[in-house]
């Protein structure tokens, strides 16, 4: 019985003070998230863009295109 009450209280308190799903996602995003870490860092993005260019060159545009589009 005591064990049940303790468990109930623990869950009840956790539900009250715990983060909402939206906030938890935000925290997840701004905390240790590789996407955020890279995409908000200009230096990293510049270095990565050099790497990307080596692996995936910019798609060509046809030289036969002529006139205004």
């Amino acid at each position, binding site marked *: 019985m005591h064990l049940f009450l303790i468990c109930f209280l623990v869950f009840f308190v956790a539900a009250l003070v715990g983060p909402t799903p*939206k*906030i938890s*996602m*935000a925290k*997840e*995003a*701004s905390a240790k*998230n*590789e*996407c*955020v870490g*890279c*995409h*908000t860092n*200009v230096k990293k*993005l*510049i270095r*990565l*863009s050099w790497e*990307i*260019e080596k692996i995936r060159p910019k798609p*060509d*545009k*046809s*030289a*036969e*295109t*002529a*006139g*205004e*589009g």
Partner: protein
Amino acid sequence: MEPYEKIYVNPSFLKTDHGEIACEACHGGDPKDPNWQTAHKGIIRDMTFPEADKVCGECHKDIVSTAKNSLHYTLAPLEKAIKARANKKDKGILKKVCQAKEKHCNACHASCGQCHVSRPDYVEGGFLAGHLFQKKPSMDTTCASCHGGRVHREFTGANDEYPADVHYDKQEMTCMDCHTAKEMHADAMDVGTRFDLPERPRCEKCHPDVISEKPKTSSHTIHRNKVACQVCHAVANKNCFNCHVGTDKKGLPYFKSGETKMLFKIGLNPRKTNDRPYHYVVLRHPPADPGLFDFYVKDGLSDFNKLPTWKLDTPHNIQRITPQNKTCNSCHGNASLFLQKKDVTGWEQKANAGVIVPETKIPRPIKDRVQK
């Protein structure tokens, strides 16, 4: 735009409502993977196209329910125009026309994301403002990305010898002052052309006097419902000719278009409606050509003459005083303003029979009329 600028996320974005959503919830990928190559596996750059409902629709259901059928999203009227001209008797030919249309014409479209978050795919994307959502997109970066060749140039006065639109020049208005969100997000699946959209801009919304019982200007009383506003108040628009598309040896799509001409031509209203009852409208020649898809299939547009190649236009260079409205006879009796048989090439005569102004319908000079 530098490649890194296109994908740089402004940290302030993370404090916005949209920024609170986990990256992978919209874009996929693995946010825990430190290797960028494997982390990006399965990434979707613009998840708002072709299915707007999936992401935006979760919160913006009302807007998305119509926006997914909007002009920008579907290009529905363009599809109708091509189908009207296509060879419908031969299903094999029609299929090839549809494939060519898909490859070349459908590259132009805009999704929720391509207006409110990044530049359109047509100009190879890139965030507008570090992933911050723009409720009202910028005219110069968003609209001009696709409409920069003709409309934006007309509006801002970038065409030599032709003034900027008075709404831009004097009132500093932008595209969105007339083209509201209601219009941008309106369902366009049932409209024949973009001019039939009930939510389109209307001059009388800001200029109610013009259609009132007793307009302040007598010319508005005389011409009301007879000529479109632009006939008196617009200047020359850009006309294009002879577009052909194909695929080069590398497999890349290309187009070849002919010369462009700045012209001002008044024609007969090809399709009168209650909303557009005018006898005369301004016309424009789009790059329509019966050989457009010849690279893929011959005789693909065998019903080419079903639609005129001089089509209704609303030039975006409105002026109070124009060369044709300076005096009555600047227009009356001035045949050069009107699209005549001699202005239309031989093979286009049939398609444009309904818009060419016969001599008898060119307004006579006012003096002549008074004398008679």
